[in-house]
């Protein structure tokens, strides 16, 4: 592309040009900002003759217009509520915002955005300001430093003032967020903040109220509170140092396993506290001694089996009484047990749904799997890696990956049909094999359970052998969980999946299927066999779960021994070809998920199971950490760790939590609780405890409403029917909205691409113009004239194109084209849009070019048109005050006419009359376009949704769309 070859000279202009100018120019300023004293920075600001305080100081913009601006402004930004300020800044603000209508548009549509809203808003503003700064002082030619440092400083101060004023209008909390979000150094932020505070206090002294003072104080103390909470959380953060060390050596993807482990640990601590606090403690307070039969004693094997002595403690369901505990307060054990478990489950569900949803939003909605492979590698440098060796290794890995991706791209060929069939056959075969393995495991567990059930008796006192026999099932289950996944990994080696991701997904799906089917068989056995045979069956189930948890723990330790230590030994000593093993995040996380499922199922049968789980996870953390640092090497591939994390949370929710929940719910609703033990003895099912309670309540006056709710809401089908109906409708609506946005994004993306093409075309034109310019230059006497003629010349060229596009006034213009500027013959075939734009820009630029340096004149054509318009305003402000709003197309026809007149005059003054007539044509066309356009501005805001990602790009896209609307509809 030509632009590139042109290098340094063209680039700045290019980047300030229209497409994406909002963001782009912000980058510009951000990077020039720190070195404001730099020569180059000065050069940047050198040419533009206007500074915004000229503009700002100019009050007579026409009252009606100002009104309309206020109207536009106050809706979106939401920060003009305190707009009494001086008229000058009012204007200035308007002036600055008109240039980023898309921004305001965007903000308007996102007025519901939660905490991030103000910051996003501010950033847009800041960007808007910086953009303006940049576009006002385009790539200057150092020889034309017409602008003193003073003016620059003024300009900058002015913008700062705007920022400050906006910040003042925000609420305290929003302001802090906004300031924090400014990409500036602490020093600058400090400066801004102090100004804001000064401004605020000066204003407050005027309108001081007690209420404002109070609320200020309250919010201050809240903020302090928030800070100290954050600090406290930081202090409590477990394993900070270890985590950092792991992240420093193994990178984020391995670290995510430990983060997940820690998260589960916190989860379990929470559930332990809930269960212990509301179920166990009250019981222990009222009745501290467990009623253990005299012939049962602690033998040691209980720690493994959970049977015997433990059976009579508060460990299991059977240990709880059904009485209402009488003390200082009455405590109904039945209700407490039921509601604690129920509320715990609901809280878990909500927490999971929220973390899953937010993680999905962050990691999936925005991620685009199809592209960005190269960027994936480049943007994935793990800054947290600090270990020298790890850095070297990672560099190596990255290089290998880059080379791989290159060669893949180079030799990506289509597979033949037979190859495809072969691949398909292999997949099918292995899937059948793995499913067969799963089914086999499930069946063997079922028969094993049958066998165990025949052996077991309901006696209170088991022999040691009997007790040891109970260990058979958990042993086999855990063994399967350890061995079968190894087979799956082996299968994976033969399958040759095309992408790493697919390979992992296949592995995950198979493992989850295995684990879930084993658990399903066990649950079936418990519900249907154990529940009928034993007198205190809930405790039996609790024991079984206890054993599973314990054995799972033991096998996890064995797993890290075999999985990591052994393969390390094999890899380093016996078969160096295999190398040091990597830490298999997926397998390890799945093990954690399985363990957590056990704990959830067990919560009803053994309320203190979370305590065991806490212990288990705590030990596991250290074991895994040691195993990792001793045996493993950093992963060779930097996978999408964040996405895997999302998948894991989703897995934790969908089969695991939902499965456990339905199991517990089935138990509570359908199964009859055991007669001899537990809090629910004597009831038909657990849930009827609520019915009993409601009946009791019915007798108490004043609580009729609870009874009513129970009868008419909880127990009525129509209520649930309606609720589901409403939810389905809402989901459908949201789905439609999402679809619409997807389409919109595609369109906007297309427009950006089109803009890019337009721009490169324009640049081409300008460059060719520039090339034929030198021979003209010699004829000019003064540089001023040179500039002028250049402006006229390029103007004429632009006109040619506009005319070609519109097939009007062709001859006239051809006559004007004396400069020998080559007009490509294929011009008429290129899109009319481009030419119209070009014409328009030229028309504006003609004014600009008169005043600006010649060498930058060409590049200015492509520049943000605000600049030109700002200058025009400068020149004609007495007559042509409506220039600016036109840009945002809210201008009324009146203004257009006024302006057109002004421009006609101007054209007549400065240019040959033929040009002026052409210009008139152009202006008329544009006026029509804008008139046509206006009705569209009403629906426009609704058309611009708030994209979830709110990425800057989309904002820019919106900007483009609006700009494009203008032209598309016009021409």
């Amino acid at each position: 592309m030509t632009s590139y070859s042109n290098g340094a000279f063209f680039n700045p202009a290019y980047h300030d040009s229209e497409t994406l100018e909002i963001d782009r120019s912000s980058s510009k300023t951000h990077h020039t900002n720190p070195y404001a004293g730099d020569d180059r920075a000065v050069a940047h600001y050198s040419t533009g003759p206007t500074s915004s305080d000229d503009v700002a100081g100019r009050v007579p913009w026409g009252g009606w217009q100002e009104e309309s601006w206020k109207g536009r402004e106050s809706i979106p930004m939401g920060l003009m509520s305190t707009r009494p300020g001086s008229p000058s800044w009012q204007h200035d603000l308007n002036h600055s915002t008109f240039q980023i209508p898309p921004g305001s548009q965007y903000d308007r549509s996102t007025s519901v955005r939660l905490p991030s809203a103000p910051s996003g808003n501010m950033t847009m503003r800041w960007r808007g300001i910086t953009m303006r700064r940049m576009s006002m002082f385009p790539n200057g030619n150092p020889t034309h430093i017409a602008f003193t440092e003073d003016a620059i400083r003024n300009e900058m101060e002015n913008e700062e003032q705007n920022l400050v004023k906006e910040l003042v209008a925000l609420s305290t909390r929003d302001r802090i967020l906004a300031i924090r979000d400014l990409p500036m150094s602490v020093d600058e932020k400090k400066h801004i903040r102090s100004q804001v505070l000064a401004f605020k206090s000066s204003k407050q002294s005027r309108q001081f109220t007690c209420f404002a003072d109070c609320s200020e104080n309250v919010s201050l103390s809240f903020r302090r509170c928030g800070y100290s909470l954050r600090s406290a959380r930081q202090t409590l953060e477990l394993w900070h140092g270890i985590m950092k060390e792991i992240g420093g050596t193994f990178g984020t993807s391995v670290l995510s396993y430990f983060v997940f482990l820690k998260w589960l640990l916190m989860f379990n601590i929470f559930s332990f506290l809930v269960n212990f606090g509301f179920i166990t403690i009250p019981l222990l307070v009222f009745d501290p001694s467990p009623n253990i039969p005299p012939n049962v004693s602690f033998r040691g094997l209980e720690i493994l089996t959970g049977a015997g002595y433990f059976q009579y403690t508060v460990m299991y369901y059977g240990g709880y009484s059904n009485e209402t505990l009488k003390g200082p307060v009455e405590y109904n054990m039945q209700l407490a047990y039921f509601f604690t478990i129920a509320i715990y489950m609901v809280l878990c569900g909500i927490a999971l749904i929220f973390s899953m949803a937010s993680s999905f939003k962050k990691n999936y909605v925005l991620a685009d799997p199809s592209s960005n492979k190269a960027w994936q590698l480049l943007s994935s440098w793990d800054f947290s890696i600090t270990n020298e060796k790890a850095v070297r290794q990672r560099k190596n890995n990255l290089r290998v990956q880059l080379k791989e991706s290159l060669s893949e791209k180079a030799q990506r060929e289509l597979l033949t049909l037979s190859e495809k069939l072969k691949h398909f056959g292999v997949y099918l075969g292995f899937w059948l094999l793995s499913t067969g393995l799963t089914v086999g495991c499930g069946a063997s567990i079922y028969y094993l359970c049958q066998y165990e059930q025949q052996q077991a008796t309901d006696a209170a006192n088991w022999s040691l052998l009997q007790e040891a026999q109970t260990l058979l099932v958990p042993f086999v289950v855990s063994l399967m969980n350890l061995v079968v996944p190894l087979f799956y990994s082996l299968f994976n080696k033969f399958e040759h999946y095309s992408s790493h991701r697919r390979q992992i997904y296949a592995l995950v799906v198979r493992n989850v299927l295995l684990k879930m089917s084993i658990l399903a068989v066990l649950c079936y056995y418990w519900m249907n066999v154990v529940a009928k045979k034993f007198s205190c069956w809930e405790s039996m189930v609790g024991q079984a779960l206890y054993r599973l948890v314990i054995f799972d723990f033991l096998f996890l330790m064995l797993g890290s021994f075999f999985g990591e230590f052994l393969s390390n030994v094999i890899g380093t000593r016996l078969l160096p070809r295999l190398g040091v093993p990597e830490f298999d995040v997926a397998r390890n996380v799945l093990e954690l998920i399985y363990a957590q499922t056990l704990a959830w199922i067990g919560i009803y049968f053994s309320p203190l199971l979370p305590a065991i789980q806490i212990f288990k996870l705590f030990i596991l953390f250290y074991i895994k950490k040691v195993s990792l640092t001793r045996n493993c090497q950093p992963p060779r591939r930097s996978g999408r760790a964040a996405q895997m994390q999302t998948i894991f949370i989703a897995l934790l929710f969908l089969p695991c939590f939902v499965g456990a929940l339905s199991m517990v719910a089935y138990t509570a609703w359908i199964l009859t609780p055991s007669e001899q033990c537990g809090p629910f003895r004597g009831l038909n099912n657990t849930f009827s405890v609520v019915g009993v309670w409601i009946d009791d309540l019915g007798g108490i006056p004043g609580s009729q409403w609870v009874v009513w709710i129970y009868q008419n809401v909880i127990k009525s089908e129509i209520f649930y029917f309606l609720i589901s109906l409403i939810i389905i409708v809402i989901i459908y609506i949201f789905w439609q909205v999402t679809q619409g946005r997807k389409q919109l994004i595609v369109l906007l993306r297309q427009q950006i691409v089109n803009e890019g093409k337009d721009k490169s075309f324009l640049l081409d034109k300008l460059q060719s113009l520039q090339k034929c310019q030198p021979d003209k230059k010699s004829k000019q006497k003064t540089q001023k004239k040179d500039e002028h003629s250049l402006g006229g010349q390029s103007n004429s060229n632009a006109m040619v194109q506009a005319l070609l596009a519109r097939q009007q006034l062709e001859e006239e213009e051809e006559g004007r084209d004396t400069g020998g500027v080559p007009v490509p013959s294929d011009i008429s075939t290129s899109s009319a849009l481009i030419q119209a734009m070009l014409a328009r820009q030229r028309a504006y630029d003609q004014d600009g070019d008169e005043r600006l340096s010649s060498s930058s004149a060409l590049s200015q054509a492509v520049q943000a048109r605000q600049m030109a318009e700002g200058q025009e305003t400068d020149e004609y402000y007495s007559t042509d005050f409506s220039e600016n709003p036109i840009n945002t197309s809210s201008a009324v026809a009146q203004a257009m006419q006024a302006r057109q007149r002004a421009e006609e005059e101007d054209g007549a003054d400065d240019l040959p009359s033929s040009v002026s007539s052409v210009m008139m044509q152009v202006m008329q066309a544009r006026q029509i376009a804008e008139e046509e356009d206006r009705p569209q501005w009403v629906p426009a805001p609704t058309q611009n949704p708030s994209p979830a990602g709110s990425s800057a790009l989309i904002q820019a896209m919106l900007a483009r769309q609006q700009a494009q609307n203008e032209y598309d509809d016009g021409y």
Partner: protein
Amino acid sequence: MGTTASQLGKDLLSEYQELTFLTKQEILLAHKRFTELLTKDEKELQNTRVPTERILTLPELKSNPFRKRICHVFSTSEQKDGSLTFEDFLDLLSAFSDSATLEIKSHYAFRIFDFDDDGTLDRGDLEKLVNCLTGETDETRLTRDEMRQLIDNILEESDIDKDGTVNLSEFQHVISRSPDFVSSFKIVL
């Protein structure tokens, strides 16, 4: 010479808390680590600049391939020598902290990757970036052909408006699509 904690006044501390994404502990820790870098005489002075070489002795930065760029970007020094004051240092940690927004992170990442400070990532920048990632020595470097191809790929994927360079908004667009970025653009003291 007092303890490090008392050197930071309470007001200053809360101000830093307000202006950065750091918590109190993190600021105090940062101050402690920063003071350790100072020589004895410098400790007496206010707002001392610590030269790049000494900053880079921090283990968190020592082996980072972008260490020089990081210092350069966060330095407010007039001479552009990459020396950092304590506030610059806080800025650095704030941008690399856990709670910094994607917006801030991608902005600074862009500036770090923009080796010639011209506001866009052009081919030269991308080449340097790739070299930083794969190692600077001759045998680790990609060949000229590979490099060209790689950069073509990158530009094809991310240069939305096809101007031959990647600008900030395009960069942020790309970054927003690779969710790992937030977790990997992180330096913890």
